[in-house]
């Protein structure tokens, strides 16, 4: 990695960068929260994306009825509205993921501080 502050414990229990430590517990916490966020958005994305060909196959009002000039609902969605959907999803996902990173980072630091405090008490 770019700077050489990374130290990995031989046991594989924690990784330290400067004052910041990842433990397997804190990383699992990050992983589960991130997975929930990513897969929820992923489910919505694939549901909408695959609904378009599905509707193109089975719903005549979607693919054959003109709703504005020559636009069918199918053509309008694929040529225009789909991008609005993608922009909205990418924006909200990025913002939520950033917030999640921040929250989990703070929690990881608390876990680290608590563990360090316990360690010094024991000494």
């Amino acid at each position, binding site marked *: 990695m770019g700077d050489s502050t990374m130290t990995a414990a031989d046991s*594989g229990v924690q990784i330290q960068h400067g004052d910041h430590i990842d433990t397997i517990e804190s990383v699992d916490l990050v992983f589960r929260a991130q997975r929930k966020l990513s897969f929820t958005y992923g489910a919505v*994305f694939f549901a909408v994306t695959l609904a378009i060909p599905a509707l193109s196959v089975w719903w005549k009002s979607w693919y054959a009825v003109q709703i504005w000039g*020559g636009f069918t609902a199918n053509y309008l969605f694929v040529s225009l509205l789909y991008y609005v959907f993608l922009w909205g999803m990418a924006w909200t996902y990025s913002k939520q993921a950033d917030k999640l990173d921040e929250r989990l*980072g703070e929690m990881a630091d608390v876990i680290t501080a608590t563990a360090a405090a316990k360690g010094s008490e024991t000494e």
Partner: protein
Amino acid sequence: MNTIAIILVIGLIVFTIALSIFSRRFTRTTADFYLAGRKVGSFSNASAISGDYLSAASFLGVAGAVYASGLDGVWYAAGFAGGFMVVVLFIASALRRFGEYTVADFAFGRFGSNRIRLITVLAVLLTSLFYMAPQMFGAGTTWQVLVGKGFFGMTPYASGVVVVAGIIAFYVAVGGMKGTTLNQIFQFWWLMFAMIMVVVFAFGSGFNYPSALAEASKTPIVNTKSLTIAELTTPDAATGKTLYDSAATIMTTAEMATVDEAIAAAAGDEKVKIAVALPSKNKLHELRDMLFAEPGHRYNAFDQFSMVLALVLGTAGLPHILNRYYTNPSGAAARRSTFWVLVFIGTFYILAPIAGLAGISIIRDYLAGGGTITAANVHGLLVKPDQIMPMMAEILGGQWLLGIVSAGAFAAMFSTVGGLLIASASAVGHDVYEKYINPNASEAKRVLVGKISVLSFAALALGIGLAIPKFGLDQAYPALIAMMVTWAFSVGASAFVPMLLTGIWWKGTTERGATAGIAVGLFSAIAIIFLNIFQQLGIVGKEGILGFFGALTFPVLFTFPLGLLTIIIVSKIDGQLPKNVDEIWMRIHGTAHERHEKQHGLDKVGSMFAKSK
């Protein structure tokens, strides 16, 4: 001779080379050469990723596909854009957090074996070659339209391929990733400018989107094809009718008289080709006419789903795009970059289908008014739809607009092939040479090997570009550029995406599982693509199991789940996780490194033009 247009293209080429020479002084280390020092900001990186991504397929191919196929062509644009959602949701930040240089590095770091690194390198090279082929084809066809002449005894097509391959090889070898990044940023904005100009000129000439769409959908789509006399006059075994008979149902008496004259002039040579217009079939709703605004011109129900999946999953399997995520300074920056990419390319992809639709009436009306164009045409339509952008530009804005569009087409090819050359060079130079052949090589020698790799792959791309017309692929597929790009997407989606998804999100993935998954996805996708090509060329029949698989336009609906299932089943049976799996997991999902960088302000974007120590 299109003098002004050629001067504009030469201007672009000179500027491109100048940028590379300028950035050369800032490329000292392999991190500079392959990753631009990991200091590319979100907006710049988004512009560069967009330039990297928007290839000849997007600039020439999407408009061409819409022009030829209507709604089924519009899907290319939507699918190309949708693919970035998969990247941002599942891959971008994890890949950047893991660090390293390449996808093969990720595979090695995650699973810890040389075997998986090497098969990933093979998959990177094959996917890149599949993606280079349409760029080279685009180079040849654009040169045909723009210059119309060859040099040193070569055809115009071959001359275009040679020029583009030579220039890209030079500027990538000289400028490395920093030079390529700078070029891609510039090339993307030139592309966007060119696309906006064409659409503005189209609206300026009286084009009205909803009305034009209604007009184009009044009568069924007409296919254009260049057929040999043998193909035109041989009766179909089932119906007893010839394609000549079908053409006669579409073309006017005067147009058919031209066909008859061409047949007579051939004097019995049945290999002579004649352009004809043919009726189209609705492959999705067989009882309906094939109208422009409805789906079904290219794809039946099965292919509608396969195509969508190929495009949205394929983006996450393109090595030159994935490599760019390592140039972000952090995981959050990687996400931000992707959002901006979606804004940029989304805007571009909204415009490209407008250009394709506008082209129908613009070309038809121009020809009907007695105008002439250099591109082959029949029944008021271009025989090669991929030529719609330059042809429309010439009609709407003369040589200036043709020059802007042609420079845009070359910019699209330069930026994408540049990214592919960097990806291929890093696969060979970084993943093979530095790891296995000479791990103790000096930085200067590593960079030199990278440059030699770039030149070698450029030579390979040149060979592929020259071979395409020799095998008749340009005649076997309508809108070949967009088609070939989806093949590359299919290979990438089948080989890499199952490994990346399981490697990032399932701790239980084993090395054997991932290796088997890559191999199965990669080779099954390539096998089906070649079966499809052979079927189109008439080498493989339409019967039996080979006929079934050969009929699959996009293999992803089979090969992606096949690769994924292989990984899951083999991993479950194997159960041999890496000994340091927890440590690996913390590298992928841990945030200590980013928190540390943030605390000390190290996550800020520096200058790409700082000299490495």
